[in-house]
């Protein structure tokens, strides 16, 4: 039995890096500390895709890695408009290979941000993002707001490690010295911990941000008695808490990015943060979901100039979410092949997009079976990043960390190598054509 310390978790955007596990016979047998229950479950392992497979007559037939990779390359090579989607639950090394492959075959490369925090990126492009690293919150924040996000269930270690419950330099008393405000449409587990719970009507976040911002700017007299289902007194209470804070933080989640005014909600959230700056230090951060959704956006941006939804069919990068985003492309029936890696559109894309995805040749690369597997034509199992292979990831606050390899696999291949080998096969096919 060997104890491994400083294990970096490859589950959610928290990327906890203080995990201690026990390894015996090349298997994680115990998670001693650091991980939340979901992270623990991933580390201990569960059902895998057993073998590469190619669909024949409606059934997936097991095959070798070589055969599956060749088949995948043929699909991409023949395609006139391939979509390469996913990339958020794998490492940056794989993402770099993916962007290069997309550029070489003139595809569209896009990650899960497209259906998650894509609207947040649009907002950042409008007004910027006054943020900080999570350690800054841990050491300084005396007022924390979770808006449209429920970390107690979705990012289980977030409050303990980085925010409300953590202890730091100026926050040595932990939550005793801090205030927590939760804004949500229902009383979530996180909301139950809050000093103030603001229950906003579904889709009315924009109005509530506007009201608070108006109050911070000194015009509370124009705010009506009730905004978005929230009484004015409570809004005044929130505004006054914000004014008194020395260091405030707004964490926001899917509850704001995909309701009502969508990206305009986030623009308003950021403008509210800026207004907070008239009184103290204010910062804001999206609660990113997958452990490396942030990393793909980084890689894609330094390689193409744009963070996601990049169409490379012209030879140069073309970015226009709404036109070049995966769900829109698919719903329009634009793509004639897709490679899905480290994600599950089968469970998350809207019906119209899925119907087209199910029709076109689809390659799936993933350690685990999921609804996408049900219609994938080529399935290539991957090593689990952070357990069976190492690589770089970016935490939700853009802090880069390196996942460790804790056990060996003599069978599964890392994503990075799978993408590289597919690319090599595509080049070989092109070479043959040239002859």
């Amino acid at each position, binding site marked *: 039995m060997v104890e491994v310390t*400083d294990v970096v978790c490859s589950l959610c955007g928290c990327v906890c890096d203080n995990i201690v596990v026990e390894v015996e016979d090349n298997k994680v047998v115990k998670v001693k500390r650091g991980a939340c229950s979901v992270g623990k479950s991933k580390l201990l392992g569960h059902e895998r895709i057993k073998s590469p497979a190619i669909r024949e007559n409606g059934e997936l037939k097991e095959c070798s890695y070589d055969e599956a990779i060749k088949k995948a390359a043929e699909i991409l090579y023949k395609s006139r408009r391939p979509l390469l989607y996913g990339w958020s639950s794998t490492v940056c090394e794989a993402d770099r290979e993916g962007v290069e492959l997309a550029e070489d075959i003139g595809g569209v490369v896009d990650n899960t941000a497209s259906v998650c925090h894509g609207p947040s990126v649009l907002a*950042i492009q409008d007004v910027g993002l006054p943020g900080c690293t999570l350690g*800054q919150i841990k050491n300084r924040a005396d007022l924390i707001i979770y808006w449209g996000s429920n970390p107690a269930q979705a990012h289980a270690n977030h409050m303990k490690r980085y925010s409300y419950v953590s202890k730091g330099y100026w926050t040595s008393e932990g939550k005793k010295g801090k205030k927590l405000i939760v804004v949500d449409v229902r009383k979530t587990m996180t909301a139950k911990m809050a000093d103030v719970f603001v229950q906003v009507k579904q889709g009315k976040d924009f109005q509530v941000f506007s009201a608070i911002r108006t109050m911070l700017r000194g015009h509370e007299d124009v705010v009506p008695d009730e905004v978005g289902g929230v009484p004015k007194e409570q809004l005044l209470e929130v505004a006054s808490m914000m004014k008194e804070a020395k260091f405030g933080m707004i964490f926001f989640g899917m509850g704001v990015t995909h309701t009502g005014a969508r990206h305009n909600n986030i623009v308003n959230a950021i403008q509210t943060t800026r207004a907070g*700056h008239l009184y103290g230090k204010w910062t804001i951060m999206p609660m990113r979901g997958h452990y490396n959704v942030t990393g793909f956006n980084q890689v894609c941006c*330094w390689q193409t*100039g744009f963070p996601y939804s990049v169409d490379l069919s*012209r*030879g140069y990068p073309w970015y226009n979410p709404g036109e070049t985003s995966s769900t829109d492309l698919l719903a329009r029936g634009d793509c004639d092949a897709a490679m899905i890696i480290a994600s599950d559109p089968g469970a998350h894309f809207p019906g119209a997009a899925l119907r087209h995805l199910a029709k076109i040749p689809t390659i799936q690369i993933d350690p685990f079976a999921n609804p996408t597997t049900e219609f994938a034509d080529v399935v290539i199992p991957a090593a689990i990043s952070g357990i069976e292979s190492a690589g770089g990831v970016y935490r939700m606050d853009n*802090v880069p*960390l390196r996942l460790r390899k804790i056990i060996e696999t003599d069978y599964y291949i890392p994503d990075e190598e799978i993408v590289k080998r597919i690319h090599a096969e595509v080049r070989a096919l092109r070479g043959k054509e040239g002859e």
Partner: protein
Amino acid sequence: MADGELLIKNGVVYDPINGVNGEKKDICIRDGKVVESVTNPKVIDAEGRVVMPGGVDIHAHIAGAKVNAGRTMRPEDERKGVEAKTKVCRAQSGYSVPNTFATGYRYARMGYTFVMEAAMPPLLARHTHEEMIDIPILDNAAMPLIDNNWMTMEYVKSGDTDLLAAYIAWMIKATKGYGVKVVNPGGTEAWGWGKNCNLNDTVPYFDVTPAEIIKGLAEATEKFEMPHSIHVHGNMLGHPGNFETTMDTYDVVKGIKPYRDRPTMHATHTQFHSYGGTRWGDFESKAGAIADYVNKNNHVSIDLGSVILGDTTTMTADGPMEYSLYQITGRKWTNHDVELETGSGITPFLYSAKVSVHTIQWAIGQELALLIKDPWKLCLTTDHPNAGPFIGYPIIISHLMSKKRRDESAESMHKAIFDRAELPSIDREYDLNEIAIITRGMAAKTLGLHEHGKGHLGVGADADVAIYDMTPEERDAGNIQKAFLNTKYTIKSGEIVVKDGEVVAAPPGRTIFVTPECDDKLMDEMLVTLKDKFDKYYSVTFNNYPVQDAYLPNPYEIKAPWRSS
């Protein structure tokens, strides 16, 4: 590195480090290095064109967290520079914040072969290195920010210079960095609370002053045989009347003995620190006062941070400065404070010839170059992309070389240039030797890279060569600018990477890093305090912090031993 031999003949060579000033001279290359002679070389006939060592940029923001935050925030800038992939090149984008590939290609086309990334937040160092892997052709290095760090301030306060030196050594090793970068010392920590500091203010909660931080870091740096001095972006950048703070900052390190004959402080983007007046309304150039100081003293080297007119993306670890700038323009603003270490801010900015302040800023950068008598005291930069993108270097070169060009430009600018700047009254013109000094020789020497093959063409040097499509007699500013934008040839480690302005090969560059060597006992004592910081205050563990070797596929190490005396 290319195998085989190359001979560049009939070139007119400017190699100031070796005292070669416009001599017709052959350059022999074998296996990526300059050699005495060759036997069976491939021959490039330079036909009387200007030949210089590969350019060395001492200060630019080309890779890492804030550069990419700039790209993310500005799709409109990315769209400006799109170019399709070629057989050799990856697709390109961006103007003031180009993608990594464009950064490599465009510098190479200007004849540059080394660029220093000027500010690496230590906690985010992996990011900087990941981007540098994707910058083709250029050799590179990065300077970690070590001035607003809690450890630094605590050791400065207690006066433990040796322990501070041990901390510096650990940080530079952990980040695979090059030297000590200072950005608004104390001010960026204060910005964690929305505040700022001037040189002699007390940093909130830490009971030290920025002046003490600078002095402590300079003393600690000189404990090692560091190739480069501390690299300082001082307090009050961009504020009217800051020139006095600037000179007071220079005074702080006066008397500290450097380990070899180089300055004890490199003061960067000096244009932003040479301002007179009390507010924007009476803003004026104080380049004369700064130049006078630099002329009279030898303990400071500078780079220009010269302005290129037009739109750009400003970005710096000076968080409070970016906030002030955003308050002026009302444009979008990104900020990213980094726990226990530093911060950063990013905001777009338009330098307009119609605005008096911008016109004076534009003049100041060039005034510094023209009023400092000895070109061996300064390097050409735009603090890319802060005062303008690096792609504008040829514009500055053409202005420095031509009084006529300067007069023509001034004619179409805000009239303030005639009463609140000196530039129109300066007649000096740079010659090609002086241009070679400020674009390669001096930068390489200041960084100590001349001892590692950069910035010159002596036997044993890296075979990095730029051949510009102009003769030494060329006087037309337009032609000069054109020649410096796209080389006839750029050769990197003996391989032709640019021919007739086109990138023809894009090999990976090397990352140069420094290893300061420190006594184990001292290191262990420092680590007790540092590990406590990780246990209590960092959000990552001590063991996950250092940059792994995987992030430097092409490393080049420079050892910096502890000085015995």
